Every structure is written in structure tokens, then in C-alpha cells.
């Protein structure tokens, strides 16, 4: 079972890739666990965008591009996409 993480902007720059397929053991996991998995894979991404299990201020995640989430306890189901991006969208 997988969660597809799509990275945008600075998170993408730091990870050096746009999409990461993360294996999850159960039907669902949580945002905090995904952040920890990403931290292991991409230390530069973690340094810029994460603080332990949390997203740094300035970053936000979205489940499937629909709902925005920040809490590390947010449930993410296997098969869902998780988008990680900058929180400020000023143009």
C-alpha cells in the first residue's frame, strides 16, 4: 500500500524530485509519520520544511488537492495523494 507524495516549489527543490511513492504498512497513516518517512529520505527537505513530525510554518499539505491540513495527526489513507507546498500563495 502506498501514499503518493507530490512536492511543489521549495519542497520539490530540496527533495530534488516531484513525486515520491511511500510505502505504508496499514490502511492509513498520519501526516506526522509521512513527514518522518520523508525526513529519512530527504534530509535537505526536512531541514527546510519540517520540524520533527510537523510542517514548518510557511508550509502546508493537502490531501488530494482538496482539503488543506497541518496537524501531524491527520489521517492519510493508503492510495491517497498528499501534496506538500508553500503556504503563502501571493502573486
Amino acid at each position, binding site marked *: 500500500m502506498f501514499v503518493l507524495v507530490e512536492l*511543489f516549489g*521549495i519542497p520539490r527543490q530540496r527533495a530534488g524530485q516531484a513525486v515520491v511513492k511511500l510505502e505504508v504498512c496499514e490502511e492509513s497513516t498520519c501526516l506526522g509519520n509521512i513527514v518522518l518517512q520523508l525526513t529519512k529520505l530527504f534530509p535537505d527537505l526536512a531541514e527546510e520544511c519540517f520540524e520533527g513530525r510537523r510542517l514548518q510554518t510557511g508550509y502546508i499539505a493537502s490531501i488530494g488537492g482538496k482539503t488543506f491540513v497541518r496537524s501531524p495527526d491527520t489521517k492519510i489513507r493508503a492510495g491517497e495523494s498528499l501534496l506538500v507546498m508553500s503556504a503563502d500563495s501571493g502573486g
Partner: protein
Amino acid sequence: MSHFGYHGHYLRIDLETEQVTRVPLGTEVLRRYVGGSGLGTHLLLRENAATHEPLARESALVFAFSPLVGSPLTTSAKFAVVSKSPLTDRINDSLASSGFAMAGKQSGCDALVLVGRARQNSVLLLNDGRFELLPVRGLAGQGTNQTERMLREQLGDDWQIASIGPAGENLVRYATISHAGRHAGRGGSGAVMGAKNLKAIAVRGSQMTTWADADRLNAYAKDLARRSLGPETVKYRELGTTSNMLVFNRLHALPTRNFQQGSFAAADQLAPETLAVKRVTDRAYCSACTIGCEHRYSLEEDPATDSESVRLEYENVFALGPLCGIEDGHAVLKASRMCDQYGLDTVSTGGTIAFAMECVQRGLLDVPWLRFGDSEALWRAIDWIANRREIGDQLAEGSRRMAAWVGQDSLVFAPQVKGLEIPGYEPRALQTMALGFAVGTRGADHNRSSAYEVDFSERVDRRNLQEGSAALAIETEDKAALMDSLILCKFLRGVFQDFYQEAAHMLQLITGWDVTASELKSCASHMVSAKKLFNIRAGWHPCEDTLPARFFQEALDDDRQTKISQSRLGELIESYNQLRGWTREGYLSPQQEQEMGYDESGHCPGD
């Protein structure tokens, strides 16, 4: 009267009689309107400018500085241009940055109010407060950069110049006023300046204001500068605003082919991640800014063939790219450069051209070359708009007036609110923003409302209008009103833990006032009401607070769930009005109008 942070007066210049009046600004007014947009709105109300045609000789054009200009605070070198808009016939305030703000304030005033019309096409000189009008020699028809260059050669490098391009001279209703590659862009202030027979304004001066507590201000400014380099601004520093492109595309929030779709198959090609690979890029800063969000790209992949780079922002790329169906980065860069040089607002230019392209697509307009996706057509249309040639003369009027000319129900898909073309935030995908667009005093605008911040948060479901949306839209609009009056760059906003608290602290250090966060909150709300009062006096009607019918009738092709409920929007507009203390329809109550303090002649007892 001496003030810290202010000169305590503005200059009212009648361009026709060449009479200059130094008008005092009392503490009560300064404390209520702060500077920038707020002060400009007050001065317009004083001039009773709402009742004048924006391009008539009586109209007023205000350049307002702020108490923060010249201070060590990062991003504070900004000025506001405020007038009645020839595009919307409602209030318009637009901001620009850098040396003009500092030299303008150092010329010895807190604002310039220009009325009347110069007898011939002229350059206004303000030299340490002394005013002079020079006839334009060899500048007519020149682009904005070239105008600045030529005037600097003539006058000297210590002058700062704001100018209009051919679009302003030809009274294109969305012409800009430009300075140092930055533009007071939206709403057509360039046409107002053109109608005053002013090609440029050149300022210099040596009159600095002082700060109430300079030592603590310096210490605070250092700390703010340090925080301005934190995670909240890294996106702007490394990629610039164009990094919105791929996110918005993924969320179906990227307006495409005149809002027929919310995503664009070629978005990737226009994103900074791709453009930067093929082109030489560099980064630039407004004066007094530590962030430096400006990313410049060489026009050609080989910069040796064209040495002048092009500033690229999300709004240019969206409006001249996906909105017109243009896939090619070079085409968008060239179109952006053309708009900069002609002095055209890129959002209204792209929006009006995209609207015309859809009219052609539907067979409502017989201009067969004006097709979505055709770069040559885009460039030709921009050139014809600036020069008001053939169909360009209609395009120069903006999409609302053009829809009236085309007829056949085309207003349904004209991408505007109150006549101002909608920026790159698809309203169906960002519905708090949709509410902000509908109620905005300047029309569809993301800078005065900023309600997209709410849509990009866990506070709402962005694809549905919700009960709390009205209060959230007010929160972002008020904050923007204060930022635009202080004036600070919006890209700094994520840095503040408690914006009002810090804004009060800054003003205390600068002015010595015992101003508090709650006082500033009520000032911000008051400024929004003052803009509304201007609009009411200009003939505003509640039916203007809406969106083009397309957004109620058609779901996005690529996200079938997203349509806006017109009745829900209506309910939320009523809530918005009531939360502002206005009537349900959106008028100020008689008591509020009285408290506002302007009689019909513009006299304000606080002066």
C-alpha cells in the same frame, strides 16, 4: 506642526494654473489613515473626486507616501497611487516601490495631489518641494524604461522618475504608472496621468523625516530583516511568485483560456523550474528590501542575442500564458516585456485579450487571427491596444466595456468584477477569494482582499462557500488595508506572529504615538469603509457586488464539482456587509457616514 515620520502636509498642484498649495495634515487624520492607500483615499474624498469623470480635468490623482518610507524597515520603500479608475469608475489604489517613494517623500511632503490638466504634454519636476512643468521633448511615444533613461540623462542621476508609456498617453483604461521596472499596475492610473498631459514625474529632495525612537527602531528593523529571511519567504527568494504556477495547476485554480478551464496542460513549460533551466536568470530587489522576490529571465535562451532581461511574476505568466492559451515561455516573456514597455497592466491586458479570443471562438467577433494559443496574435493585440489601433481600440477599453460593444450576452463570460479583470485565482476553486473579488471596492483583486490566504489553509473547504467565509474575508481585507497604508510588502506578512501588534510597535517607534493594535484594527476597517463611501458617492449599486454569471452557470471542465452557488454568495455578501456594520445591501448607515466625517464637499473636520 512637526511630526515624527511625517512632514505634516501634502502638496496640491493644479496643473492648469500651476498653482501649488501646501495643505497641512493634522495628527487626527494621519493617525486614522496612516499613509499610502489610506491617506490617498482620504485625500480623494476631500477632493470630492468620486463625482468627477476619472479622465476629466477636475479629477484628482494622488501619490501618497507613508510614515515608514525612508526608515530602516525592510520592504518599506513604497508609494500608493490613488484615483478614480477609468476602468471601473470606482476607487483605485495601486502600489509601486523603490527610489520614487524615498525621493518623493524627501522632496518634502507626505503626498501629492494633482488636479487639472497641463496645457501641453509635460514632465512635472518636484525639486525639494519646488514645482516646475517642463514641456515633453522627444519623450512622447517612448516606452517607460526609455523615458526614465532619457530623463535621467537630461536631469541627472539623482532624480527618481515615474512615467507612463504609450498606453497611458493613448488613455488605455488599464495603463500603468511605472518606476524602475515596477508598476502601479491595476485600474488605469496611467490613463489618469495621461489625461492630465503628464508623461512623467521627476522628484528629488533632501528633506528627511526623523523617527521618535531611532535606536529602538534600528534594533527592531534589524530583527525584522533577520526574520524576513526565514522559511515564510524562501519561496519568494528562490523561485519568485511564478512558483504558484504548478500548485495552482494541480488544484485546478489556474485560470485557463478565459476561465474555461482551471488547469493548463503546458503549465510545466511556464513554471520557473523549467524556464530557469533554459535561460539565464537573476534576482532583483526593490529599494530597502531584504527579500528580493523579483526574478528576471533572459528573453532568449542565448542571452547574447538580447541583453535586457524580463521580470516575471505569476500574474504576468498566468495572464499572458494559460489565460490566452499560450504555451511557449518565450512568447510570454516577450509579451510581458511589451506590456512593461507600453505601460500596460498585464492582468487586464491578458484578461481582455482572452475574452476577445473566446468571443472569436464562439463566432461573436470577426477577428479571425485572434485565436487562443497564437503567440503572434497575442503580440499583435498588445501592440494594437497600446496604440489603440483597429480592434485594439476596443480592447483598450477593458473586457466589460468590450462586452457591451460585442453584445450577445458576452458579459456572462467577461472576466471582470466592477470592470477590473480577475487575477490568476480561479474563483470556483478558491471560493473565499470569490467572495473577496465580489465585494472588493476596487473590483476583482487579490491584493486588496488576499482572501486566497484563507482558501490555502485548513480553515475552510476552498471549493465551497461556508458560514465563516465572510468574517475570514474581512480579516484578510482589513489586514491588507493596513499593510497598504503603512506601506509594507505583502510578502512579509507570514513573518509576523501578531501583525497588528507589530504594526503598532513600528508606528510607536516612528511617530511616538501611543497607538495600539486595537486602534489599528479599527483604522483598517475604517479605511475599507472610506473606500466604500467613495464608491457610493461615485454611484455604486449593490448589484455590482457579484461575479460574472459564468462562475454560477458552468462548472470547471476539469473539476466538475466546482461551481459557485449564486444564492449562497448573495447570503455571504449580506453577512459581509452586516459584519462591517453596513446595511444588508452594503450601504454605510447614515450614522456611519456622519462619523466618517466628510460632507458632500469633501470637507473633513479632522483636517
